[in-house]
């Protein structure tokens, strides 16, 4: 079990970049929220890997806080998506960019 820390961080960076690409490319609101989830999860992976490299628990504590944040963010985001779908009858985020009503 001697995995270099760099490879774990590299995995986190790769996941984060994939999530970022998804957020930039997709216009469907649900897919955008999923991409945000991927990015948050990648940040959590980086924290846990760095904490494990030092043998300390701080990284895992931070992961728990990231988890809390992701949960509350998703609940509010999904409620917003439902409202958006009621109003515009579509999940396209470009349609919601007018700030009108």
């Amino acid at each position: 079990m001697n995995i270099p820390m760099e490879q774990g961080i590299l995995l986190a960076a790769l996941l984060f970049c994939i999530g970022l690409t998804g957020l930039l490319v997709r216009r469907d609101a649900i897919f955008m929220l999923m991409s945000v989830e991927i990015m948050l999860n990648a940040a959590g992976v980086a924290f846990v890997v760095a904490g494990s490299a030092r043998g300390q628990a701080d990284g895992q504590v931070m992961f728990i806080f990231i988890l809390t944040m992701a949960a509350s963010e998703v609940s509010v985001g999904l409620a917003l998506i439902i409202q958006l779908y009621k109003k515009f009858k579509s999940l396209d985020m470009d349609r919601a960019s007018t700030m009108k009503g």
Partner: protein
Amino acid sequence: MNILFYIAAFLAIITTVKVVIGKNAVHTLLYLIVSLLSISVIFFIIGAPFVAALEVITYAGAIMVLFVFVIMMLNVSKKERNKENELLKPNIWIGPSIISIILFMEMVYILTYQPAHTMTQHKVLLDAVGKLMFTKYILVVELAAFLLTAGIIGAYHLGQKEKMIHHRYLKNEKMKS
């Protein structure tokens, strides 16, 4: 043990790419769950069993179920899906991909020009996490509680239905606006 890490990492990357390029929302969600499970395997391997369990229970169990419920509620039509397919043409996705590849290359550059650390052998157990959380990070725990309360209230307020208006005058007013 090492080969397990690489297999899980490969699986996580493949399924995450499938999430980003997927078209059907439910299939995409299932790929995302597989990705989260393989990341939980990685956590288990690098010696964080508590976090691995949390990842399965909270992420793959609770947050993804929320997504499933919302997708079931929305009933997205076929037309919308076709519009989304047009977004996956190369001239749309090539710019964002270049941006994130540049970011990733910078990350690789930083990581490769450093002396290598190996991860320590012993795993961090649950009691260390709990002790640290309720001594050093107690303020952050309270802030997380505030955040969750705000999340509950926000979701309740945004998710509630429009109130029915029975009065004739108010109904007409609403029509006009």
